[in-house]
């Protein structure tokens, strides 16, 4: 399932422009990462791509179909989003949360069928949270809670998975654990993934395709190797970096000054 973003212009308040003339293509089966400085419009673009915001002009096509013509329920069967800082009532158990992921397939008050059960079991397992299924969310660690929310998104059984800064507030171990999970979901379950990240080295390591944004525009797009250059980072972040590569680390960058 691919997504075509065409000439999007968007403003939250009709005064300042938050996205101007943004076009991009999300390739099926790839991990695409959007990076850029704070306030560059990364999360806004993700919001446009998931129909949370309606652009003032431009179109988003999902497999050639206009996104805005899909019913909310239809869209939720094709595209799942893990947002930043999601909340649920404190006594919600992991399993119950994951069952919410079946809402797009449910009519009011119908009970779960076999397909729902299979999807919930798979989601719990794929997110590596099935051992905590009866725990309540309030008792989980940050990493486990994030995986519970990912499991909820997986239970929607979509081909597209969006993650908005999924590693924020996690320590280094859990950041890597989460990104490994994302990679596994992509490689083994064939999910097309779009995420917003802050850490450039993580973006390099875990992405097939990187979109770099600055002030509401896309300033660079391509494979990690082709876009993550010293010049690009200086222009985008106003930070001098040294881009290195060695056998053990692959491509990586180190900030060297302002």
């Amino acid at each position: 399932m691919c997504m075509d973003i065409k000439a999007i212009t968007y403003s939250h308040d009709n005064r300042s422009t938050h996205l101007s003339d943004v076009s991009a293509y999300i390739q099926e089966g790839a991990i695409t990462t959007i990076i850029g400085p704070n306030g560059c419009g990364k999360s806004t673009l993700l919001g446009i791509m998931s129909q949370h915001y309606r652009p003032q002009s431009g179109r988003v096509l999902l497999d050639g179909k206009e996104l805005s013509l899909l019913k909310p329920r239809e869209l939720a069967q094709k595209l799942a989003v893990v947002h930043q800082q999601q909340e649920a009532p404190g006594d919600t158990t992991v399993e119950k949360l994951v069952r919410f992921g079946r809402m797009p397939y449910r009519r009011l008050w119908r009970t779960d069928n076999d397909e729902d059960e299979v999807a919930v079991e798979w989601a719990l397992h794929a997110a590596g949270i099935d051992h905590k299924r009866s725990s309540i969310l309030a008792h989980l660690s940050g990493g486990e809670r994030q995986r519970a929310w990912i499991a909820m998104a997986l239970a929607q059984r979509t081909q597209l998975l969006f993650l908005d800064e999924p590693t924020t507030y996690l320590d280094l171990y859990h950041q890597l654990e989460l990104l490994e999970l994302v990679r596994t979901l992509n490689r083994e379950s064939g999910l097309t993934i779009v995420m917003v990240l802050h850490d450039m080295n993580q973006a390099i390591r875990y992405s097939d395709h990187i979109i770099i944004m600055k002030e509401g525009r896309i300033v660079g797009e391509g494979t990690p190797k082709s876009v993550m250059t010293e010049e690009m980072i200086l222009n985008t972040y106003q930070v001098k970096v040294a881009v290195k590569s060695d056998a053990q680390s692959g491509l990586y960058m180190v900030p060297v000054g302002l």
Partner: protein
Amino acid sequence: MGKKIVSFGILIALLLVTILYSAATGSIKVGLIELAQGLIWGGNESVEVVRDLRLPRLFVAMLAGAALAVSGVLLQAVMRNPLADAGVIGISSGAGLVSLLMVTIFPALYFWMPLFSFLGGALACFLVYSLSWRSGLSPLRLILVGVAVNATFTGLGQSFNYRGSYAVTSVNQAISSIFTLKTWSDVEIMALYGGIGLVLAMLMGPWCNMLVLQDKTAKSLGIPVTKARLIVSAIAVLLASVATAVGGLIAFVGLLVPHIARLFIGSDQKLLLPFSALGGAWLILAADTLGRTLLAPTEIPASIVMTVIGGPFLIIMLRRSERVHGH
């Protein structure tokens, strides 16, 4: 799950016992067997008095309590705010004011009072939403705006009431909550509109479960958030307005009952809605029964009993709010 079934069982038993006690107790005392016989075969004068005066009162009290409690659950879900309650944010006083005005100006339209009440409640709800909406609902702003709207409508209602002695007698029951002098026609109005509201509310459980998550989460799960919010709010306003139109202004029910219910039943709205309906019915019936038996023959209105119980309870609740689930 076992705890939840036991909680339901105990609450239903409590409600039944209170109904029986309330039906048998008061200025005219009748035994339960005598009451049953009189209701079935007739011919017992004191049972007929009970049937015409006390039983309607019982039903109105229970339906009003259920309606207010469920309206509280719905508003708390839709506004994602544990303090949302029809009484606190002005829906009840809006409903009271508009029905008061209409009934005073057009006394012939008494039967349509629930409709005017609904319009008043909807007006208040709309005001609270639109005045506190600023790219999202801030819980604090919503409550502050609600308190202001409530004060305005209450003030208008009271000034109208002081306007002249002519209005006071005919209109008093619209704004104070005395369940005396309720007839079976009040029960009919209450059961019809309140019943519709309660049935619709029970169907809203899955949506309410989604609305207590954030909008962004609910949207991503394919919920038409704006539509769901509008429908759930409308049902909440209907329930609160009907309760106000027939039973008068009663504060705290929509706040207390859902909060206590959550302690027993958790935050799953599919269970919370019916449990709160039963709890609200029991609470108001108990408050009304207490009010008319405690200092008999003097009556304390249920609304006053509720305020006396509700105030301290709210303080206790806030003190231990760490342990109460926020929404």
